[in-house]
């Protein structure tokens, strides 16, 4: 109950084409994350699936049924908005009940679902409050509760965590993942934060300028980014992307090596350089190393207790088995 298929879907605002023809299938029960920099069209894509925007051409089907011209209310999808979009004049209970009221669910069934959603989301004590009296995290839960009780074919999340502070965000991330494991319902989740994408997704869709750059599981994207954009976008800290003679040595226009795949040594190695800023996280240390061979500094991960300091001379050695090679068009060379 919740396979969503887009076939050559396009979207233009006037003369501006924000989504060129796009094909994508989201399987039933999958947790799919749309990720990309702001303005890449990921939210627009979500709104197209929701039916809040018309597609300019193409076809959207839900569970094999053509939903292209079905209004949002009839698509059987639930959405959690970035601003939560709670009804400020209704109590939490009424907020959660609203979609069921619209669907004509009998009152005792409504109450049963409200109680169970509230229990699952730790909202039981707050059912009679107004949204204005709740904290950000609680509002977020109410928005999720409102989505759950509809028992929708799929959940759509539009950057749901971006209004929360960092600590809460990690907690909510876990809760949403947990929810998905429990409900096994299709979820589509939009974010600009690749950490959220990597930690939550079954399938990540990387978008840039309305174009799908790559679709795959988090590890597929991590291991084999299809192009320079994905390589640079997925992974934290960013992959080092290097051009010039050193890349040519590997028969590539650009080579990429992740910070965790570079060995650092004070005695010997492939590239010599100088330690710049270092970021100590405790478990790890990230060194920004200015190498003679490259213009931009490289980021290198080392253990938490490595004693190197600003200005030290070091040598870097990339792990050649983990080296990514890209051609002049930025595409991966197999």
């Amino acid at each position, binding site marked *: 109950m919740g396979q969503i298929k887009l076939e050559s879907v396009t979207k233009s605002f006037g003369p501006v084409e924000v989504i060129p023809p796009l094909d994508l299938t989201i399987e039933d029960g999958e947790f799919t994350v749309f990720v990309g920099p702001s303005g890449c069209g990921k939210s627009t894509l979500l709104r197209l699936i929701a*039916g*809040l*925007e018309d597609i300019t051409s193409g076809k959207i089907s839900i569970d094999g049924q053509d939903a292209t011209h079905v*209004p949002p209310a009839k698509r059987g999808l639930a959405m959690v908005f970035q601003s939560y979009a709670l009804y400020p004049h209704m109590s939490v209970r009424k907020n959660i009940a609203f979609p069921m009221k619209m669907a004509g669910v009998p009152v005792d069934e409504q109450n049963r679902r409200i109680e169970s959603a509230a229990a699952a989301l730790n909202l039981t004590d707050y059912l009679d409050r107004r949204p204005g009296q709740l904290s950000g995290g609680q509002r977020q839960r109410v928005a999720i509760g409102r989505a759950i009780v509809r028992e929708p074919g799929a959940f759509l999340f539009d950057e749901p965590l971006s209004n929360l502070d960092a600590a809460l965000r990690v907690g909510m991330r876990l809760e949403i993942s947990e929810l998905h494991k429990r409900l096994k319902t299709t979820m589509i989740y939009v974010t600009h934060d690749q950490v959220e994408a990597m930690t939550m997704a079954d399938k990540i869709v990387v978008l840039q300028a309305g174009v799908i750059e790559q679709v795959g599981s988090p590890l597929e994207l991590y291991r084999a980014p299809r192009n320079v954009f994905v390589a640079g976008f997925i992974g934290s800290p960013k992959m080092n992307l290097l051009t010039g003679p050193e890349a040519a040595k590997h028969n590539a226009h650009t080579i990429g090596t992740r910070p965790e795949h570079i060995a650092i040594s004070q005695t010997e190695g492939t590239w010599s350089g100088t330690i710049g800023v270092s970021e100590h996280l405790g478990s790890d240390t990230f060194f920004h190393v200015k190498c003679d061979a490259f213009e931009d500094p490289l980021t290198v991960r080392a253990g938490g207790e490595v004693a190197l300091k600003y200005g030290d001379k070091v040598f870097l050695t990339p792990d050649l088995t983990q080296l990514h090679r890209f051609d002049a068009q930025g595409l991966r060379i197999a």
Partner: protein
Amino acid sequence: MATQHSRSAARIMMAPAVILLLGWMLVPLLMTLWFSFKKYLPLRGGDLGWVGFDNYVRFISSSSFWPSVQATLIIVGGVLAITIIFGVLLAILLNQPMWGQGVVRILVIAPFFVMPTVSALVWKNMFMDPVNGLFAHLWKFFGAEPISWLSEASLQSIILIVSWQWLPFATLILLTAIQSLDSEQLEAAEMDGASPLSRFGHITLPHLSRAITVVLLIQTIFLLSIFAEIFVTTQGAFGTKTLTYLIYQRVLESQNVGLGSAGGVYAIILANIVAIFLMRIVGKNLDA
């Protein structure tokens, strides 16, 4: 940011209001145009045939026409000037810390609630009457000869009455606008060494420009068609015959619908000139 569905719904939902107003505008307008080319005297023979532009020529060449345009503009301009200037001053005053601000605000707003016929009657009889009016008593108290306000200073009197009615509105809008002024801006200017007067001129006044525009627009809409104040006080005598009142007399008192309709068309043209002028300013200022 919407779907085809919601756009067509929007069109349907806007339709009743648009159609009603379009009808309200067009039907009487076309009928007025139609009558304006006819000799039409409902009590003296009814429809006496087409007369071309006769009514237009007669209306404009009547000795009352230009004075009536002038009276209209003086009243509108006078009231606008008074309400905006005193409105700004009052708004600044009411924005100062004081005791009983809420009560003062009620006192100041109150005239807006008074229907024009009442305020005209009260002013005419109880204040401006040369024998028993309060002003007459006041003048006598100071040993002056009471003035017969509505005949000797008729336009000023009307402007006074109408300004009294509209001052609350201007004050309230301007007060709301002043309250929304970011006090940090004023403090920054104070730190920069700006005097109270230049703070008013460079920060407060520009901040009020949008509110002043709104006052200007809304008051003009209502003032162009003031009627009751004249109907009740002077009946158009002593130079207070506005264009509205002149047309009213032609249609209802002389029962000359053709001539009145031609006057109506002139009034519509005048209103449109003012409207275009206003919409220009407002259109620009409304988005801000």
